[in-house]
């Protein structure tokens, strides 16, 4: 059954991609939705079986969840060790990701049926292509999370990159979309270079690609206790000890490998300084932004770190790098988000900031503090964030669809016109701001607890970012739905809620955002598979709250919301005053601290002009010249031996005989 989870989306991609143009738009869309719906059911079944069936492959007698390989096919075998396999690994995080990906993907499939039309209900050009790419993406993402080895992960990692490229550039007649897709592809590819080198270094020294061997000590057969604290760590360390991993530039090879692998994660998860592609990626259709650039693909970096977490834990220095990168990114993105006008860009920066939260959470996770709560919190936040951020993006899509513009300056005061969108958006904002009892509260609170356990610095820092989060989200909320009365232009319809295909996903995701916080995650996903609580009920998460941390974070969030309310609820000059008070900071934040300009400078003025141009000259004149010469020589030779093929059969036989005799005599002479 598990193979169908991958096979159905792949089949849908092939079907829609090859024959899509011959079928009607509606049929293509329906087929896409049906395919994804089936995948959803299958993925849920697999995930629920994993978590709740209590099968011996999934959970051991001590209640620890195990890594279980459902199937593993040898694809290419070069040597005994260098084997590339494709398989299906089921463990808490991959099971959780199956649920997240299929849920969001199905919502997006459904939503796009309404979204990918114009105002007269006519389907957009390339609608079938859109669904084909969505299926390709779902396939790749599912393949990524269930990868049994790091090489398989890398293959699917590149596939999600490619499908993201295709979807960002979906409107390929629009130059900005083409530029954005190229940018996303090049930046993430650049990061993947590090990832690949990291994989090679890691597998060279460990002699394996397999996650189960990398991150755990095997216990009879396929079943593994995938993280048994010290003993496992000792086991994996001994692998490195055996191959005598040398030091390189002051750090162990393993640290280098992990940092390089993390570089790949930074690219995909848009961590600073490789974040520049994500805001531009908003050029893609909004459902794509919701699926790929908010909920699933961008958290692949987090997933990667979580997957290799036991290795990172062995090299604390690499985890510290993860923490610092995450914390800096979180603050940076939150500040930028406070100044953007385009609502999708605000959400994009918010995504960057929230993913950074997850990274920090993994970075500060230590087994000795609360059973490694940071790991669980990061995964929990990944789960809740996927739900409410997808919700916010889909709401943004509904708004953009109704208004025809991405800027809040064209919206204002929409609450009366689009009530469903308004309420669901508000729920999303409350969830991301971390207001009890919405989903974000619980996960963010646990992240802050983990930070608290690590160091005061990160706790204060991340709390401040959480406050900023509440502020910019409510700024956005008020500017879209309040601020002033909406002006309906002459000859235009008043904006209104969208058809059911678009509102239903909003309602479902809003409902999930309300209750997802109560999922007893500590019993499902932990760093060593060991459950955190002895018994669970609906209120487990509430009972185990660290109330001091929770109270502080709630207070911070509420203060931030109050400030946002004062500043943006009604049209007033306060925002302008603030802006004028700190013009430099505002301008820098508005221009995203000039990162794009910096990159432009480096690539264009330094790399292209100073380095590439001389190389290009060398290439054109010296290398091409040499090659042309070779080609000419080859042509000459070809012309000069044409006499051999005379067409006369006597010559043929003559050459034949002479050839055989010459061959014999040369060997004979050599042997003399």
């Amino acid at each position, binding site marked *: 059954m598990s193979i169908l989870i991958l096979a159905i989306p792949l089949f849908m991609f092939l079907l829609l991609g090859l024959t899509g143009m011959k079928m009607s738009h509606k049929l293509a869309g329906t087929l896409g939705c049906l395919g994804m719906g089936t995948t959803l059911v299958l993925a849920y079944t697999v995930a629920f079986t994993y978590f709740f069936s209590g099968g011996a492959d999934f959970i051991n007698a001590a209640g620890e969840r195990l890594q279980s390989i459902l199937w593993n096919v040898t*694809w290419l075998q070069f040597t005994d060790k260098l084997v590339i396999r494709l398989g299906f690994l089921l463990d808490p995080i991959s099971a959780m990701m199956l649920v997240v990906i299929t849920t969001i993907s199905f919502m997006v499939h459904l939503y796009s049926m309404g979204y990918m039309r114009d105002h007269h209900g006519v389907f957009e050009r390339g609608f079938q292509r859109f669904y084909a790419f969505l299926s390709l993406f779902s396939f790749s993402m599912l393949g990524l999370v269930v990868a049994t080895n790091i090489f398989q992960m890398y293959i699917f990692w590149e596939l999600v990159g490619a499908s993201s490229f295709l979807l960002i550039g979906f409107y390929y007649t629009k130059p900005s979309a083409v530029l954005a897709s190229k940018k996303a592809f090049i930046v993430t590819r650049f990061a993947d270079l590090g990832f690949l080198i990291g994989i090679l270094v890691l597998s060279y020294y460990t002699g394996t690609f397999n996650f189960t061997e990398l991150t755990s000590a095997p216990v009879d057969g396929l079943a593994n206790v995938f993280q048994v604290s010290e003993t496992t760590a000792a086991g994996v360390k001994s692998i490195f000890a055996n191959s005598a991993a040398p030091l390189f530039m002051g750090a162990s090879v393993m640290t280098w490998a992990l940092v390089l692998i993390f570089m790949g994660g930074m690219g995909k998860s848009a961590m600073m300084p490789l974040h520049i592609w994500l805001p531009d990626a908003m050029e893609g259709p909004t459902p794509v932004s919701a699926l790929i650039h908010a909920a699933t693909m961008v958290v692949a970096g987090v997933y990667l770190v979580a997957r290799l977490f036991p290795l990172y834990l062995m090299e604390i220095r690499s985890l510290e790098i993860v923490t610092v990168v995450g914390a800096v990114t979180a603050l940076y993105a939150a500040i930028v988000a406070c100044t953007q006008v385009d609502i999708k860009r605000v959400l994009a920066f918010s995504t960057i900031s929230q993913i950074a939260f997850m990274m920090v959470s993994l970075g500060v996770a230590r087994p000795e503090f609360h059973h490694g709560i940071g790991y669980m919190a990061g995964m929990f936040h990944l789960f809740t964030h996927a739900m409410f951020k997808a919700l916010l993006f889909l709401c943004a899509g509904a708004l953009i669809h109704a208004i025809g513009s991405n800027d809040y300056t064209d919206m204002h005061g929409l609450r009366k016109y689009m009530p469903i969108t308004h309420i669901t958006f508000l729920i999303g904002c409350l969830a991301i701001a971390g207001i009890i009892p919405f989903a974000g509260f619980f996960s963010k609170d646990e992240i802050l607890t983990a930070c608290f356990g690590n160091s005061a610095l990160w706790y204060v820092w991340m709390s401040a970012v959480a406050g900023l989060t509440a502020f910019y989200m409510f700024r956005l909320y008020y500017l879209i739905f309040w601020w002033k009365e909406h002006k309906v232009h002459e000859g235009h319809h008043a904006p209104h809620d969208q058809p059911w295909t678009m509102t239903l996903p909003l309602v479902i995701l809003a409902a999930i955002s309300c209750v997802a916080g109560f999922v007893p995650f500590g019993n499902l996903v932990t760093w060593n598979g060991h459950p955190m609580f002895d018994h669970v009920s609906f209120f487990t998460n509430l009972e185990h709250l660290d109330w001091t941390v929770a109270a502080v974070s709630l207070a911070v969030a509420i203060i931030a919301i109050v400030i946002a309310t004062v500043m943006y609820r009604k049209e007033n000059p306060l925002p302008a005053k603030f802006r004028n008070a700190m013009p430099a900071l505002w301008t820098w934040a508005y221009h995203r601290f000039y990162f794009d300009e910096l990159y432009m400078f480096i690539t264009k003025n330094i790399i292209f002009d100073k380095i590439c141009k001389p190389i290009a000259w060398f290439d054109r004149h010296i290398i091409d010249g040499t090659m042309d010469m070779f080609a000419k020589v080859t042509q000459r030779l*070809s012309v000069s*031996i044409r006499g051999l093929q005379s067409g006369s*059969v006597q010559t*043929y036989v003559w050459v*034949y005989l*002479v050839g055989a005799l010459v061959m014999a005599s040369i060997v004979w002479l050599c*042997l003399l």
Partner: protein
Amino acid sequence: MDYSQFLVMYQEIGLLVLILLVFLFDTFSSKEAPRGLSMFTVVLFGLLTLAGFVTPCCKEVASAFGGMYVTSPTMVAIKNVLNIGVFIVLIQAKGWAHSEFMRVRRGEFYELLLITLFGMYLMISARHFLLFIIGLETASLPLAALVAFDKNRYESHEAAVKYMLTAVFSSAIFMMGLSFVYALAGTLYFSDIAASVIDGGAMLIVAVAFVIAGMGFKLSLVPFHLWTADVYQGAPTSITSYLSVISKGAAAFAFFVIMVQVFGPFYNQIWEWMLYALIILTITVGNLFALRQKNLKRFLAFSSISQAGYIMLGVIAGSAQGLGSLIYYILVYIFSNLAAFGVIQSIESKTGRVDMDSYNNLYSTNPKLAFTMMLAMFSLAGIPPFAGFFSKFFIFSTAVASGSVALYILVLIALINTIISLYYYLLVVKAMFINNQEDCVIAPFKSSVSDRLGMWICVAGIILAGIVSCIYNGIVNTSVHNPEYIFTIFAN
């Protein structure tokens, strides 16, 4: 005599029965409704091909007739591979066999073709030179008749005469080599020769050279290749495609067995260097000639010469992996080359054009044919992820597996030649997709069902044979796990 040993050669017997059935059908069916024959043959042969896969074949080496005939999973594998190729050829030839000209000759075409296949089976399984010669001649002589099949065309009989004369000459040389071998060893059993010849001096060298020359004719290795281009160009296209893949594939396998099993002890001393020189010559000369060809059939003739050079890398590797890679290479080569020939044949039968200039801008009129041709060219050139890349990759890697520096250099030369070959293969692609003309001289047309079926099989093979790794692994496993009949050169 134990008649049960006939059962060992169940594939040969199946083929013989098939030939008889075709003959009977041809004799007794009405000439007025003649279309049934090709369908009958194709279906029967398809069944035979399938049977080759599903029969619970011998899991180990089995021999019959005092060891003259041997079969093993590897040999079943190569025969199956050839069967797939012949099946595709038969499908693709259907259109030609249905032409008015072929109306009364259809039967001969199928019978002769299948008899040559029978000869190839014997070549593959023979472990005694007497049986081998019978197989070789059975595989050669009917081909001359087939080449001359299009008897209203002057080129066709010219080609047949050239083929005939060269074939006779090469057989003579081959048998002269064999007589030297017999003089040295006093036996014609493969294994006995290897055991009894200690050091033959000049006589052995000449014998080896003559045997290589005789097989080099069938494989069209340079300098024994000169007949190839003329014959490929003159023969009916179906026959050309048969010659270029099936005949070559069977000969390559037989060549491996002879060289390794009979002359294995003299690998380092004698024939490694002979073959070394032949491979370099074959690949390079084939490439250099292919560069400037305008006629596509002639072009593919030279391309197949250089491909034969690559196949020989499996022989010079001399190991079980080498044999596995060789069979795999033949399989992939069958798909790629038959895809190309399928397109050529389909266009030739509709428009009569085989020159490359007519293919300019083919994409605009016949996109699917252009696409198939592109895949075939990519696979022949060895561009990943198509099967041709994998077959080249594996055969190169087995060639260097022994670690000898000379073989590394050989593979390097082969690699350089791959780059040259890329140029001419892409010329075809360029003509079809990039060369702009007002409009293509080949009008849009719909290929017949059988042509399309043949091309679909080839395209599926080109795409899948590489990435579905179990195909390669399966083939190599059969040859690695049954090495009894291979004299392992690198045993020590």
